[in-house]
């Protein structure tokens, strides 16, 4: 949809001749306009950083100063201290943000190309803004991009996943395939042209493609080795952090206001590729607390490997901070910040501990679900802090509220405190993982955590056994002492609540 039209001289004269009339009509128009008129013209800009754990920011208590530029900007924003993602990886984390629903409702929680179920396809954030704002979306993560394709009918502009990348390899959004992106993705990206596995369906093309790809990757790594000593960031296509930020700035320059913008950036997602000035800046000898390999760990990585990964993650985050700060600065200098609500958050966190690497894990611990939420509102000059427990599913109803729309009936989230919501210390916040559970079957292979009143109960329910873990987050933020074996009675209420919820959501999908 193109809202920009050239105004002819004739149109201009018509417009001028109507000015007195509009002046006369003002009181009537004002009376008929809903109260939301004040905010409806604000832009709403969501910046999502992928796999960005709040636990790795100094602001949230981390010993390393990973994002000093962002933290400086945060001084003029509302910062949520206990904000949690509903999912543990891109698909459920993003889908929950976009729908205001828990993964058990939107059902986008399996690893792969499955998206939001058709019953909820219209229940998403872009549908709320499409009548009042120009809508623009960009996801640099292909799994998030597949979800954006599901929202296509509410998008005025859908930038390609590789819009700001150095290379262009994706096929599912290319040429005719963009008319059938989900199936093309499942077939071409997830089966025919595959790396990291030998199960491709192509006997001749795939090995040649991989040979070409590894060579091209190496050549690019060498070309940019002065800037990126460990190699270039790569989301199947390699990219430069600076290009992504430049692309975002250019896009915002051309924003049709009022606009609703969803930018889902890949950094600091693995592979962690810090810029040269940040390489080794955290070679400080600091070691995270010792956390033994978890019984359910898929990775079973050594502590030394994970400590090294954490260091690289921090250095990459610092690199991203240096680049993305230009975007914040642009928004401030151009006055966009004054005309917009800007939300900075993540789709999920990252867990380089207990044997696990990244977020390919059934485990649920704080670094994986505790994500930053920072909201800039026009005119705000001082930081506000919210300590209440909040969830990523709260974003949609809150943004709807900000532009004067009622919270849609489908949402499971609530209004965020400071933005129409109340501080409810006893609120129940769920996060779940069900990577290997069929999306339309009851949850029988799942991990679900319930966080409330500074406590967290996590239920691991898998065919080879069940397990509860119970932590007191106030006294034990690192979740080192599982209280469930020694004090199961303390967890009775929270356990019953979680089991009841699971039973309730499973009832809908029982055969």
């Amino acid at each position, binding site marked *: 949809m193109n809202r920009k039209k050239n105004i002819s001289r004739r149109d201009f004269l018509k417009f001028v001749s109507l000015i007195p009339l509009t002046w006369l009509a003002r009181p009537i128009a004002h009376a008929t306009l809903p109260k939301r008129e004040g905010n409806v013209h604000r832009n709403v800009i969501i910046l999502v950083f992928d796999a960005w754990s709040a636990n790795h920011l100094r602001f949230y208590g981390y010993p390393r100063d990973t994002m000093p530029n962002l933290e400086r900007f945060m001084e003029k924003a509302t910062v949520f201290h206990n904000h949690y993602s509903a999912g543990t990886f891109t698909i459920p984390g993003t889908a929950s943000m976009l729908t205001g629903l828990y993964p058990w409702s939107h059902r*986008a929680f399996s690893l792969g190309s499955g998206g939001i179920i058709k019953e909820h396809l219209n229940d998403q954030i872009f549908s709320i803004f499409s009548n009042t704002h120009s809508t623009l979306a960009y996801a640099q993560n292909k799994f998030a991009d597949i979800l954006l394709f599901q929202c296509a009918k509410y998008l005025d502009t859908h930038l390609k996943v590789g819009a700001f990348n150095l290379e262009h390899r994706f096929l599912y959004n290319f040429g005719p395939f963009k*008319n059938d992106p989900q199936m093309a993705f499942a077939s071409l990206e997830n089966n025919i042209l595959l790396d990291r596995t030998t199960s491709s369906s192509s006997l001749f093309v795939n090995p040649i493609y991989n*040979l070409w790809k590894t060579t091209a990757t190496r050549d690019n790594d060498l070309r940019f080795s002065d800037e990126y000593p460990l190699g270039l960031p790569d989301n199947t296509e390699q990219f430069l952090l600076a290009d992504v930020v430049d692309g975002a700035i250019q896009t915002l320059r051309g924003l049709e206001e009022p606009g609703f913008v969803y930018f889902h950036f890949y950094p600091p997602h693995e592979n962690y590729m810090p810029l040269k000035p940040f390489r080794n800046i955290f070679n400080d000898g600091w070691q995270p607390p010792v956390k033994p390999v978890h019984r359910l760990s898929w990775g079973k990585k050594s502590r030394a490997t994970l400590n090294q990964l954490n260091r690289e993650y921090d250095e990459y985050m610092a690199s991203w901070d240096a680049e993305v700060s230009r975007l914040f600065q642009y928004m401030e200098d151009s006055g966009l910040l004054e005309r917009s609500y800007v939300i900075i958050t993540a789709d999920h966190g990252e867990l380089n501990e207990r044997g696990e690497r990244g977020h390919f894990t059934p485990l649920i611990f704080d670094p994986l679900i505790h994500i930053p939420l920072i909201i800039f509102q026009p005119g705000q000059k001082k930081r506000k802090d919210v300590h209440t427990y909040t969830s990523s599913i709260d974003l949609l109803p809150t943004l709807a509220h900000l532009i004067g729309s009622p919270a849609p009936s489908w949402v499971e989230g609530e209004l965020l405190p400071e933005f129409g919501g109340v501080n409810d210390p006893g609120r129940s916040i769920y996060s779940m993982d069900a990577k290997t559970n069929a999306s339309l079957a009851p949850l029988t292979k799942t991990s679900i955590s319930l966080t409330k009143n500074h406590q967290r109960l996590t239920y691991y329910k898998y065919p080879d056994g069940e397990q509860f873990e119970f932590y007191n987050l106030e006294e034990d933020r690192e979740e080192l002492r599982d209280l469930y074996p020694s004090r199961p009675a303390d967890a009775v209420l929270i356990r019953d609540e979680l089991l009841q919820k699971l039973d309730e959501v499973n009832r809908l999908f029982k055969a």
Partner: protein
Amino acid sequence: MALTPDQSQSQTQAIEFSREKEGHSLHVLASRLPGWREIPFVFGGVVFAIYGWAVRGFLYQVSSLYLYHTLGEIFNVFFYLMAFALLESLFVMGALILAAFILPGKWFKEGFIYKGFIAAWVGSIAMIRLEYYLFSLNYAVPSMSVLYGGMGIALLVLLVLLLLFQNILRLQRFLLMVEERMQIFTYLYIPLGILSLILVLLRTN
């Protein structure tokens, strides 16, 4: 303007000569290509290898697809794979025909019926080896010496097999029998590939 009988005759001769020449060059061109009756036999081997590999890939994926896609969607993925396998088969067959066209006739064109088949299968196995080799390197760039070495081994194996089959008639007969049986897959897979391609084109347009 009317032509004199002489003019008309010489023009007819010129056209005939030109046609003859054209026919001659077409004939030369055709004579460098493998016999049309040989191609389906070789194509059967190509189709068997490529479609077999594609079905293997699909079976690997189907259990995870089943987690989040409906049966109809899983069929759609299958159609994509079959359409791609058809194109890949035609591409490989085209490469074999091109090799027969370019190389001296005695090397590859003569006896294409078994030479093409052997080349397709040695190529397939080399590609599988390459796939697993890249996987073992975690998709780092392989050393050129290993790649050239691998190509050398594949060519050597191909050469030895070609010489062996060229000189032992019984082996040729045996291979022909195998190829004849494999042709059944062409009748199954090619229509499936064409149908899949049509369905994919309908979905994407």
